[in-house]
């Protein structure tokens, strides 16, 4: 009789311990899943899932050409698009390569010229470049499309004839 009671008590104790263990596991899972995103936007596998939480109302397209009208690599001049719907450089190991282009924002002519002249230091063979900026935004109540199209002729202050 005593043995039987002891066995029963042991089984119940095991079950209770098992249940407690399971509930602790479930609690830890929920706690981590709920709290980590409060403190960090991204810490894979935890995430605040911030994709496309911005609401851009315009964007720009840039092209850059050399004096012979050949299209140059926009990335080499920091005019490429880094936008991917997520906050830049968050939840990833590296920041993207710097670009003047900020999605949802149109760089001013002053910003653009200063940026390109700075980048032209790496291209002493180019006497000048021509940059076009197209702004795409709402054109009426239903559509979006290009509203501004600007072209800049930007001289290279560090141009060296013999570098060509």
């Amino acid at each position: 009789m005593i043995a039987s009671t002891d066995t029963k008590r042991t089984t119940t104790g095991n079950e209770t311990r098992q249940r407690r263990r399971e509930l602790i596991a479930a609690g830890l899972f929920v706690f981590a899943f709920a709290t980590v995103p409060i403190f960090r936007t991204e810490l894979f596998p935890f995430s605040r899932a911030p994709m496309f939480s911005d609401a851009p109302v315009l964007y720009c397209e840039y092209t850059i050409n050399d004096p012979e009208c050949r299209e140059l690599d926009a990335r080499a001049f920091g005019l490429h698009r880094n936008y991917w719907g997520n906050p830049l450089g968050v939840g990833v190991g590296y920041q993207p390569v710097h670009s003047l282009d900020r999605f949802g924002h149109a760089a001013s002519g002053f910003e653009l010229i200063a940026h390109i002249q700075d980048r032209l230091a790496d291209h002493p063979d180019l006497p000048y470049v021509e940059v076009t900026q197209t702004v795409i935004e709402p054109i009426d109540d239903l559509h979006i499309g290009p509203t501004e199209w600007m072209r800049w002729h930007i001289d290279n202050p560090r141009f060296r004839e013999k570098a060509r």
Partner: protein
Amino acid sequence: MSWSERIDRLTERTLPHYGVLVLSCLLFCSVPLAGYFLLKWPGDLPHGPRSGTATILSFLPDQVLHDRRTQIACGVLFFAGALAWAAHRLLPWSAWLASLSFTGIIALYAENATQLTHVAHLTDMLLLLYALWYHTCRLDIAAALRERRFWSTPLYPRWVYSCSVFAVGYFYGVSGLMKWLTSGPGWANGVSMQIWVQVFPRDPDSFWARLVVSDRRVATVLQWAALIGETSGFVAIVSRGLRPWIGLLLIGFHIGQIELFGWGFHANMVILTLVFLPFYEWIPRWVARYKAPPIQKEAAATAVTAR
């Protein structure tokens, strides 16, 4: 029902059919996801300076994080672990091996990338949760497998299902909340949707892409549906009645995303189907009907119809 009764209910167990179905789907979906993140190694692409802490693996030395062989090793371990887990071998270690190495594959991708994608977050979280199930119930599962009564033994605890509902609801809820906090109700302005479709189209000539780009009212309606669907993730955690409807809305949201942008949220759709639609209730009923003798089967069918 009191809180202690609710908590007690979490440890109630049902036959493992639903749990194994979800696990099989998770493993099935995680294989192409793992393949994608292994093949799309971003470490050789141009990048800027190092960011701060990005993943739970950020504490590892850079030599380990940026060595592609580390990710390939995770890939090999994942495929071996997933096979063993699916075959119910080496439990619970195969479960941990598969889920942790899958975490490793995605985390190492992120550690070497400049852009993040969220297509594997939910799959990874649920794999970890299911590994937790196999770990905490390992003795009962092992005994049931040894005695060949796995399918007839209640082994699937309710807390695994409840945690899945929480994870899915919270993931979408937070994503919706972020949109409210970052941009407010103006997020669903239609313009941003038109811009995204123009910039990231799967096929710019598809009917839906042309429709969205040519009519802001359509874009606005779709954006509101997305915002309401995502934010309702919080509601789905607590409301059993609304959960399937929110699930359907979110599945529709992903179908739209895939059609317009081609983003690979297919695994999330499978998870939403299994967790938010009432499969947790349907599967035991189907199993009972299938297992019942013919007369009982008829009665069960009548009972189901009567409901």
